[in-house]
């Protein structure tokens, strides 16, 4: 186990170094941030001073080395636009995205897996066919359109729910959370539903396919022959057996939603990471983009590691191989 941890740690460092190079090169190639930073009528002297202050007059490789050096010390630079340390900026936006993503992915899983299992258990029932039809909708209708329709129906026409923002927040452990207040929950609901529809469809299809396959196996027949009820069989035999692909998708969806909830956050003016990255791309706020991408890489490394641990917890055969 220790060997496995060390191996994974070294892998993670290699991945991060490679990502750092790609990110630096990619971001460097985009536009010239100076044009955004100073007003068009600034003097040439102000312009040169600004360039020197941000180290943009040095050769690319020196900038990269300086960047790596600062990165190793945990210093990701200051935002051009907000003029504050990037790490603080990104981390201040993380909780908003975290709670939105968690609500969406967990909701999709908790609802999608049982529905999918039902559809796999009774594949010829009308309900199962309806669920599968709806899941195709969930896959194919674009997120931004669903978001707009949700706002139109629930915020504009019915006026039940707010159209955007985080609402009232409560500070716990120095971080602001929306889900702890009623008003915050109301604000959370529409964007979470918007984000979760696609995932709900996917979880349903995944659970259905797994269940259909497992209920035909001798494992289930043997459990039936010993008198176990259908509920026991679904809960104790089928669910553990289909959980590995579900955990995989849960992890990857969680990571990618955390990183790229851009569309939903923009539509619902949710002040999270997605909104931050879009704004920083528009204003060519390089340090923010870099810090954000590095954070995403770290997130995926951590999530993949957790998925591997979950595999081992779920399937003893994988444990044995390690």
């Amino acid at each position, binding site marked *: 186990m220790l060997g496995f941890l060390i191996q994974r740690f070294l892998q993670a460092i290699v991945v991060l170094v490679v990502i750092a190079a790609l990110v630096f090169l990619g971001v460097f190639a985009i536009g010239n941030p100076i044009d955004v930073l100073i007003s068009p009528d600034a003097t040439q002297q102000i312009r040169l001073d600004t360039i020197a202050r941000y180290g943009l007059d040095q050769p690319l490789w020196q900038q990269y080395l300086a960047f790596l050096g600062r990165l190793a010390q945990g210093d990701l630079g200051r935002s051009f636009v907000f003029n504050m340390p990037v790490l603080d900026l990104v981390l201040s936006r993380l909780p908003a995205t975290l709670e939105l993503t968690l609500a969406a992915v967990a909701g999709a899983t908790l609802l999608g897996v049982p529905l999918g299992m039902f559809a796999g258990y009774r594949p010829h029932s009308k309900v199962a066919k309806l669920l599968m039809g709806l899941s195709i909708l969930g896959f194919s209708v674009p997120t931004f359109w669903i978001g707009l329709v949700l706002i139109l129906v629930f915020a504009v026409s019915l006026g039940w729910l707010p159209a955007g923002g985080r609402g009232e927040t409560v500070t716990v452990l120095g971080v602001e959370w929306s889900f702890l207040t009623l008003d915050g929950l109301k604000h959370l609901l529409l964007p979470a539903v918007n984000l979760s529809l696609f995932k709900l469809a996917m979880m349903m299809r995944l659970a259905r396919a797994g269940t259909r396959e497992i209920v035909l196996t001798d494992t289930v027949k*043997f459990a039936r022959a010993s008198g176990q*009820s259908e509920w026991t069989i679904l809960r104790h035999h089928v669910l553990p*057996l289909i959980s590995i692909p579900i955990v995989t998708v849960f992890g990857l969806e969680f990571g990618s939603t955390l990183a790229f909830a851009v569309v939903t956050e923009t539509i619902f003016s949710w002040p999270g990471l997605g909104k931050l990255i879009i704004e920083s791309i528009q204003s060519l706020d390089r340090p923010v983009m870099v810090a954000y991408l590095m954070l995403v890489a770290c997130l995926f490394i951590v999530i993949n590691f957790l998925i591997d641990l979950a595999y081992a917890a779920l399937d003893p055969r994988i444990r044995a191989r390690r």
Partner: protein
Amino acid sequence: MSAPLLAVRDLATHFFARNAVLKAVDGVSFTLDAGEILGLVGESGSGKSVTGYSLLGLIDPPGRIVAGSVKLQGRELVGLPTAELRALRGRRLAMVFQDPMTTLNPVLTIAAQIRLAIAAHERVSARAGRARAAEVLTRVGIPDAARRLDAYPHQFSGGMRQRVAIAVALLNRPDVIIADEPTTALDVSIQAQILTEMKALVSELGTALIWISHDLAVVSALASRILVMYAGRIVEQGPTASVLRAPRHPYTSGLLDSLPARAEPGAMLRQIPGLPPTLAALPPGCAFQPRCPRADSLCGMAPQVTLTGVRGWRCHHPLDGGPP
């Protein structure tokens, strides 16, 4: 003689495919006495496994029991509500399957699987469940059972896995165990061990056993009575010794001739010509007719069962029974 433990009459289980009805079991009748070991023999696709599943009501759609009756101590099982049938499964009727690799759940410990089987019929504390699991595993010959309760199926050998499955079947001392080729997937030496132990266990507990197999040699070592199935029907039945010594149905005789033990050393094995019929295209009349050396025009009509004492067969031209 008292009423039989299990009485099956004219059982018919059909599978409804898109444009055909597959008569997997087509009018099977037999009885089973308490503590008796009955062998059910036939080629793949003869309907022997479906017969076994039908007894427990474990036929999945598109299959269905369309006719007949299964009575356990006089109680009709066909058409019983699911909940009542479920209460009988594992308690009065149990089943062991062919491949122990696939019957046990790979992600649950042995103790967890046995506990689920116990909990299907009674409330039991975790501790009492473990004790009971260890006891039943010891009974089926798993050494050091208490220590291996938390092992997973993949940590057991094939023979040990099948012992666990047998332990689950024996858990509630059922009246009948239906064993569907339980030794086919095992090594020959393990096969013999399991056969011997199974025989001892059922005689110790007074459990009746229906042993389903394509292997006449295995069945003859175990069963006191044999049923031979062909294309969904029982074509011959009788006490094992009598059937083996003097088969009346040409199919039984063909099966016996194809046993390696009966062949001259070095000589080619004799086989039954042709292939087992597919259920979708059964010949009219006697299903064995196209492969039968004794067939004639009479065989275009389905033969009825001829019963003489304990022997029975379904043939227009039975082989000579020899001196009774």
